[in-house]
């Protein structure tokens, strides 16, 4: 009998060792095949609810994945990219922000629950002796019973009344603004522009426009379209703005620049109007140079 027990123990020890080896092997990096996905999985999609950039199909997430891919291609590592995103969009862009401030509650509350539960369990397992009293049968007097009845009935009716009163008093609460997807889209588009990715930037502006039809955004879109080489699109967008506000300097500027390839005459008219409307515009000097009768040979 003895040797059998020893054998069983030995076998268990051997199995435990093998299991330990398996665990150790498994604990190493699982080597995700797709580094973009690995980084994107750590970023929260600002336009969705509870989805990571890796999983989401919203255009913002697509653009953010593109940014990640670009940066990886430039040789940045995971932490650098994470830091880059945190700098731009705040710590909330991470699916797992560092546990600081309020987030310490995430660990404090469960720890407290565990401790309180353990304390209660120990108390239950070892009740202190000698304090037990037989539960005294309660026989409340008739007056106390009547008082309880009155109080309780008032309470019950009061509950109904309070619901009614609160309903008529209460305006629907203003919904706390969620992370503003438009702002993120605009920021992202701007970033894309600084990286000369005007195509993607234009897409982002279009996305933002769908949420917030705003002429300022439309003008940014027109510029991005112009720079990405889509002069038709730029013209169309600029005309949309000019339809509402015929003297918009930026609208005239984009329109004129976009017309230059196809309709030089109209382009000149638009640009002259631009100069008339906004002589002090930062781009005015450049345009004057363009329109001067003897353009420099390398003029854009």
């Amino acid at each position: 009998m003895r040797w059998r027990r020893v054998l069983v123990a030995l076998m268990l020890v051997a199995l435990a060792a093998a299991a330990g080896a398996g665990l150790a092997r498994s604990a190493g990096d699982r080597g995700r095949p797709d580094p973009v996905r690995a980084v994107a999985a750590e970023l929260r999609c600002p336009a969705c609810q509870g989805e990571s950039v890796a999983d989401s199909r919203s255009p913002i997430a697509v653009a953010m994945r593109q940014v990640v891919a670009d940066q990886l291609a430039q040789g940045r590592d995971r932490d650098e990219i994470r830091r880059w995103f945190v700098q731009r969009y705040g710590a909330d862009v991470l699916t797992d922000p560092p546990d600081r401030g309020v987030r310490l509650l995430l660990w404090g509350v469960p720890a407290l629950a565990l401790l309180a539960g353990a304390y209660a369990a120990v108390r239950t397992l070892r009740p202190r002796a000698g304090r037990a009293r037989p539960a005294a049968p309660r026989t409340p007097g008739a007056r106390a019973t009547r008082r309880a009845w009155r109080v309780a009935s008032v309470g019950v009716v009061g509950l109904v009344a309070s619901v009614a009163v609160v309903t008529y008093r209460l305006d629907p609460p203003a919904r706390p603004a969620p992370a503003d997807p438009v702002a993120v889209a605009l920021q992202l588009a701007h970033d894309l522009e600084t990286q000369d990715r005007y195509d993607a930037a234009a897409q982002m502006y279009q996305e933002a426009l769908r949420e917030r039809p705003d002429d300022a955004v439309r003008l940014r879109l027109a510029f991005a379209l112009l720079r990405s080489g889509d002069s038709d699109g730029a013209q169309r967008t600029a005309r949309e703005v000019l339809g509402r506000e015929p003297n918009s300097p930026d609208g005239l500027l984009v329109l004129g620049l976009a017309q230059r390839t196809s309709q030089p005459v109209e382009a000149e008219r638009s640009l002259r109007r631009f100069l008339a409307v906004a002589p002090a515009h930062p781009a005015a000097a450049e345009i004057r140079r363009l329109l001067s009768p003897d353009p420099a040979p390398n003029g854009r």
Partner: protein
Amino acid sequence: MLGDLGTASLAAGLASATLTALLWLRVALFDAPARIARLGTAATLAAAAVACALLEAALLRHDFSVRFVAENGGRHVPLYYTLTSLWSALDGSLLLWLLVLGGYAALLARRAYPARLHAYAMVVVSVVMLFFFALSSFAANPFRPVSPVPTDGPGPNPLLQQHPAMGVHPPLLYAGYLGLVVPFAFALAAPLAGRDGAGWVRLARPWALAAWAALTGGIGLGAWWSYAVLGWGGYWAWDPVENASLLPWLTATAFLHTTLVRGRVAWHSALACASFLLVLLGTFLTRSGAVASVHAFTDSPLGPMLLGFVLLAVAVSTVLTGRRDPEPARAGRPRALSRPTLVLVNGVLLVAIAAVVLIGTILPLLSAPLNGTRASVGPGYYQRTAVPLAVVVLLVMGVAPALRVRDRSAALRRLAVPAGAGLGTVALVGLLSRPGPAALTAFGAAAFVLTGLAGDALHLRTGPRRRPGRLAGLVAHAGLALVAVGVAGSSAYGRDDERTLRVGETLRVGDVSVRLVGVDRTGGSGSMAVRARLALTTSGRAGPTITPALRYHPARDTAVTVPAIGTGPLRDTYVTLIAVGEDSGSATVRLAVNPLVGLLWAGGALTAAGGLLAAARSARRPRGRADRLPPTAAGTGAGRSASRADRPAPKAVGSGAST
């Protein structure tokens, strides 16, 4: 017309619920006969049923003068989803809530329990009921008229028109949530009822078991719905709505286990109260727009009122159950490694998991006023906290049944084989693949539990004493172990890829590949759809053609992905259509291979079945000689006062006095 009737039925229900609460209070305080109070409960149920029926009728008749129908009905919606659209938005689902609650109240009212305890418990249930009736009539009345009357409505949220589970999942979930009102009511009634209250735990147990089984089924169906409809390939996203259903499940599980062991009255009442309070809190979180979620309902003014009611309920239950006499000392010191100890340990761990889930769910709410920003809590947090705790729970679950045997060394010997199986599984799986430590330990723990259960099952069949009662627990535990394997396997070995395919091109994941055959566009009355026809090939063998789709619902301006799921015994192939090229010549497709997902559904069903089995058994079990009633007393008020005088107070299972 229907609208006016509906508003009237809600008003009648409110009046009747208020009256019923007062009538049961009279029974409790003045020993008044219970018959009228029972009638009041029945009338309240009838009012809820009439309100539901009227709203269904309005939906079916497309009566768009009723606000709820104007917002959630539609002529293009198929009959089945018209029926289920009753609970596809807040106001209507509140009616279903009332109906289920009223059903529980009526069932509870018909039972014959110790009179004072019964009456106080009915007061509690009636007050809960009247609160929700008040909400429904004042703040969320679905019957309010609309003018001008629209000619058609948008139909329910398209996501809720995709899957037949929509007809079963919400009612089942509500049956689970609201069943927990009964243990809660008993726990609050017990301290008020004096001697009558002593045996409440044994009376509440069948109710808790039935509710737990329904809740388990509801959570499982919800996960299935999420898997089959949302199209992201997963089944659990730690979304606030999902968390809200998990929270009461955790505490109810702890309640069911601590009630297996004698004594521990404080634990019983705390867990019973916590379970229903978490139901109320979950209702507040998900029905008030307080937290953003995939399937939370929209804004409404209910939030503050629900919060107020939750706080009131917390205060009342703390006052009522907090003050109690200390438990009497037991002879001898408890052994550290015994079944009662482990049951308690598991209770503590389940409460800790509940705390994790609770704080993770409400932190975004808390951080807004504290910090100015809404903190987000991602799945990573739960993976670091709840998952390890759950693995420990699984291990304890495997150890505890073996300790039934009094002899310590015999118990340890019974654990040797399961321990070997668990360690062997970890070694084998860990050396053959790299699933990550969490999944690996979960595999090991599940193997440990399942082997132990198999031994137990053999013991049950061949052992000297046949104890059919254990079968229920065995089935439920086996189900949970299977769920653990499914979760660990699908999260560790799932693979996916996404690409834009031209017609004829192939996307490959592992040995599964799909080739794009074509893209079809169809236009329907209420929706337009694009389907991709894909030829599936599994390990070289040609499979069927599958057609994932994108459905566009113009009425709500939303597009819904309809994944094509090929279910196999060991793994699912899950194909989603993400986008289609303008010329219909290309499609962006996501192909995922999800192993062992089937175990999740099987395990969930098994767990719920175990709960039902236990509920059926514990409801049938004679309640002991002391509190068995004369047959005439059941269901009638006549025998009531006599029975109170004649009968000795029931002996408690739960109270320290009987141990």
